[in-house]
């Protein structure tokens, strides 16, 4: 059988019994979203951060408990990374145009998520270490346990924490996006001439 014979058979098919759009709940229904769960999680992290800010802002300005400040800064970084991820997923879904444009756009957004997971996240944690060190040296958080720890030990702690964060975020990216990204790259390669 040739492709053209197949076409005529395909076009002879009776499709009257196929379900129409009226059989689906258009207003309440949601098409499958490969990143639906991740998007929801990113949204919740950001909302949690926003709620925490509203609740704890009076304590932040009055009580200078170093542990509290650090936890708050960590939460800020996590929520910023989550917000970037959420924004990129939304932009990826909004992509218009032909198949190739959509593929290129998806790959670009997935790379942007990777950058925010790895580079942005690491950059902010390095910045956090600098801020913390500055606060300790200028006694903004005096009377804390941090002052009693020798600088080299603190440095090791910072490094260990940053490396842990890096590994954690890399794993998270691989788990959530890596296989999808490689399938998109594979699809894009299929659009090129062999």
């Amino acid at each position, binding site marked *: *059988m040739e*492709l053209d*014979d*197949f*076409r005529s*058979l*395909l076009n002879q*098919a*009776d*499709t009257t*019994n*196929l*379900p*129409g*759009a*009226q059989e*689906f709940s*258009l*207003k309440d*229904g*949601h*098409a*499958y*979203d*490969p990143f639906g769960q991740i998007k929801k999680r990113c949204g919740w992290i950001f909302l949690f951060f926003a709620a925490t800010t509203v609740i704890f802002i009076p304590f932040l300005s009055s009580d200078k408990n170093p542990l509290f400040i650090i936890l708050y800064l960590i939460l800020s970084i996590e929520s910023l990374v989550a917000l970037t991820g959420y924004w990129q997923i939304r932009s990826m879904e909004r992509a*218009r*145009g*032909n*198949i*190739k*444009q*959509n593929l290129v756009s*998806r790959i670009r957004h997935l790379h942007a998520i990777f950058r925010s997971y790895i580079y942005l996240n690491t950059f902010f944690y390095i910045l956090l270490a600098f801020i913390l060190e500055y606060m300790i040296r200028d006694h903004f958080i005096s009377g804390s346990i941090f002052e009693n720890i020798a600088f080299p030990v603190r440095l090791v702690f910072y490094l260990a924490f940053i490396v842990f964060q890096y590994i954690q975020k890399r794993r998270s990216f691989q788990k959530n996006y890596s*296989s*999808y990204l490689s*399938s*998109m790259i594979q*699809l894009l390669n*299929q*659009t*090129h*001439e*062999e």
Partner: protein
Amino acid sequence: MLLIYTVSKHPTETQFMDLIDQNKGLIWKVCLFYAATETDRQDLYQDIILQAWKSYPGFRQESKFSTWLYRISLNTALFARRKYRPDIRPLPVELANSASPYSDNEPFEIMHVAIRALNEIEKSLVLLYLEGYNYDEMEKITGISGGTLRVKMSRIKQKLKNFLK
């Protein structure tokens, strides 16, 4: 004039349903080539309709509705492929036969299996070719340049011939 513009920018559900009714064969063809099992086909069919409804306000009527719907259907099938294509091996003939609304004709089913064995982009090109789109229209839907499309189509035909030998 303003009223006409508003109506076309915010189409009613009924208008959309009528258009889908006229083109549901097109959606089913995409499902037939991109989903492995009957359940997956039904899921993909529903997802394409919901995705089309979500995107319909953005339909500018610069192209035919069927061309636009092809773009939406292929994008939905390709980009959500983790769900619909857990297994990339070609289907056995018996499974490919299941619940096909088209035919129980054996040569037809063998060709169907041969097309299923092509890669994702090749499958989309075959679908557009079977639908009678010319290379210009195929280029608009896929974004692949005319020259590359011609080369790809001739290779696809050769692959199918080899498969059917």
